[in-house]
């Protein structure tokens, strides 16, 4: 999970220690480039491929983690 948080920190341009499950994505630069970068990050870290439409609906880091869990369970 640390690798994912560090990657997300780089995408959102915030310190890695500020990334946690409750982090509000919408208060940062959560644009199309960030979303597609997160798709690539999740592929690297968890070997799952999320859709941009699903990620656009995410409000928090926990929402992304939920999507990853759903994909892994499928």
């Amino acid at each position, binding site marked *: 999970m640390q690798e994912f948080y560090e990657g997300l920190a780089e995408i959102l*341009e915030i310190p890695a220690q500020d990334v946690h499950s409750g982090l509000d994505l919408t208060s940062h630069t959560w*644009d*199309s480039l960030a979303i*597609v970068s997160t*798709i690539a990050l999740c*592929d690297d870290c968890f070997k799952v*491929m999320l859709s*941009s439409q699903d990620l656009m609906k995410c409000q928090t880091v926990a929402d992304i983690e939920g999507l990853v869990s759903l994909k892994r369970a499928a």
Partner: protein
Amino acid sequence: MSFAFDALGQHLWRSHWHLVAHRNELPSHGDFLRLKVLDQEVVVFNDGGDLVAFDNRCPHRGARMFLADHGRQAATCGYHGWTYNRGEFLIPERERFKSCQIDKVDFRRWQTDWAGDFLFVSDRPAQPLVEQLGGVLPLLEDISFGVTGRHDWNAYAFECDWKIALENALEPYHVPLVHPGSLGLLDLQAGHNEFHGRNSVWYAPVGNARVARSLARVSELFALDFQYAGYMSIYIYPFTMISSTHGLSYSLQHFLPSSQAERTHFYSRMLTMPLHSGRDPAVVASFLASTAATNRRVFEEDHEVCKRVPLDTWSPQPPAFASDAEEKLIHFRASCRDVQAAMAHHGTDL
């Protein structure tokens, strides 16, 4: 609206090869696209797998065959039902055409040739395509072999002459002021220009570190055999530009002469690139939609500023005050001087 006799534009349209389509934009029988140039139209049509280019006029009485810019339909004239299909005209009541050589009927066609999977057309080419493209040919081939299709089609009339619109696309000097919230966000660096005959290429690193890092990560989703990891803008003399950031998609633009004064037939398309095997296109759907929207915004911003520049400011001579960021513009004007000198020497009907 006044009529403009644009001798240079007419000559360039007639005598040069023009990139009009990628093979994968028109993959199925009946796929077509249409471009307006001067007072003409060019249709590229997939006729049973062959891409043919013609003037969009029914050879019977001249009605337009296609009324939309792109789509898939039979090549049927809505006036009397003449239909072109797999190399032949199907003519209702053919036996009644007794006093003419109906077997010789055909469209007015354009010659076609390929640079990789990019289709070029020309009316009366002054030179073979391979010579016109010169050193830019391998680059176009590399790009073309990756393109999977078209994502966006954007067409409208720029309210300025084509040379004004094109020169704007050839220089990045205006980017910080005209595109602060769009193209300017990339913070493009000075980069370098390459010149290949009358064609040119600008390679510029992306200075925005966050964007550059993100694009590098996103690149991993794509199966790219060719990629420039920065911003690249290719100019294909005389009317065509291709630009891309990191080669994740390509914007194909045309600045075509109009028969109306101070007007340009502007077209832009976004060409898509392949994802790694088995990956759903939905993965990058919002990214492509956002890229297309940003491209459209950039062109609107260009259009707004180009409206300010009247044609009487243009000359084939270099600008009296030119930045080194305007090197490609100066090269374009030198090319136009060469062409105009040849037109004067041989007469305009080269």
